[in-house]
């Protein structure tokens, strides 16, 4: 079954003048709308046996990463509210100092040998997932003078159809950098606020870690196959 078209007013535009890297990378031509075929309605079958879970970024090789330990939990549903089981989430982020565990990140902040910055988790039968990590730091990114990314965690989702593939970012409540960030501000108002996690005392574990909730919504299925391109 086909997926619903992406509704207007949710995704950021490909051409975002305030984000320099889009200038020469956004297509000039409109994409060609196609009906969904088996290619778009099916998706790779990921399993935790072939793609092992890694649920805790707060420790690496048995040692604790530096920083504020946090738990992030959420639920993946589709736009009809149906829980999405078996979704593979890939998670990646900077360390507490705002530095990625990569050669190409040259930000002058310390690396943490006990922080890998990557996790993988599958949603359960009710679409729920949870990981433990440390709160990442903000980092500079040279897009404009004195440009700093708000504190964020990257998420990649593999759903039940290739058309559901989603890569997004989670932000933290109350971050003053959100108002200044072209990538976050590029998402239309009303949709962007949903990228901000909520502090959640029910996710918080006593004497252990603060908890945040981040729910994500994937495209839903159309009731009938989409026969003609709209």
């Amino acid at each position: 079954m086909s997926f619903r078209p992406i509704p207007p007013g949710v995704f950021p535009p490909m051409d975002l003048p305030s984000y320099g890297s889009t200038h020469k990378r956004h297509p000039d031509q409109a994409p060609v709308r196609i009906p969904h075929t088996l290619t778009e309605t099916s998706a790779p079958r990921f399993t935790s046996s072939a793609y092992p879970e890694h649920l805790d970024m707060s420790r690496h090789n048995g040692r604790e990463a530096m920083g504020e330990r946090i738990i992030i939990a959420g639920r993946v549903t589709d736009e009809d509210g149906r829980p999405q089981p078996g979704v593979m989430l890939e998670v990646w982020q900077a360390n507490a100092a705002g530095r990625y565990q990569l050669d190409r990140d040259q930000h002058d902040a310390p690396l943490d040998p006990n922080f890998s910055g990557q996790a993988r988790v599958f949603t359960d039968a009710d679409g729920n997932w949870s990981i433990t990590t440390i709160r990442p730091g903000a980092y500079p990114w040279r897009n404009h003078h004195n440009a700093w990314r708000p504190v964020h965690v990257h998420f990649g989702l593999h759903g039940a159809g290739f058309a559901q593939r989603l890569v997004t970012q989670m932000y933290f409540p109350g971050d003053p950098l959100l108002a200044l960030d072209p990538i976050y501000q590029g998402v239309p108002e009303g949709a962007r606020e949903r990228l901000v996690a909520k502090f959640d005392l029910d996710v918080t574990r006593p004497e252990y870690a603060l908890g945040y909730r981040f729910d994500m919504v994937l495209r839903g299925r159309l009731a009938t196959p989409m026969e003609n391109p709209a």
Partner: protein
Amino acid sequence: MITASQTSGPFWHLIDFPEWADLLRAGGPNDGVAGSRITLTGTVTDGDGAVCPDAMIEIWQAGPDGAYEAGFHGFGRCATDAQGRFRFATLKPGPVPGPGNSLQAPHITLAIFARGLMHHLTTRAYFAGEALNETDPILALVPEGRRGTLIAREASPGHWNLDIRLQGDHETVFLDI
């Protein structure tokens, strides 16, 4: 309301597992599956013609029998190198059922992620010389003059190449799926 997309960049390499570019890797999900072995390569360039050395390409394809995930795990991921090039080793997919009773020509779907792409781009690689290309229901939706941007060329036996131009002259046709 669905969750908004955000760029994967600039540090998506934390989820780069180079072995995923080889769908036929020893000990991998397709180890021993029979079919026609091919490599799919390409160079990603921007509107200035400059190469994109920090892109991530994902592929999704049917197996040699034209079925998805029935004996062949058709998923791969590859980082572009310093020259903007990607390279996958895989099996040539078979024709895939299309809308109604139609048949789609063999094709590999590509999703392109990178710094500066607010959401990923989707395109397809078809194979030059394939008779079914003439009747493929998706290719038929693409203006004839731009169709070539979706047709991989056989550079040498079994080595297919399709370059991705994000913007400007001969811009790749991207698909709104």
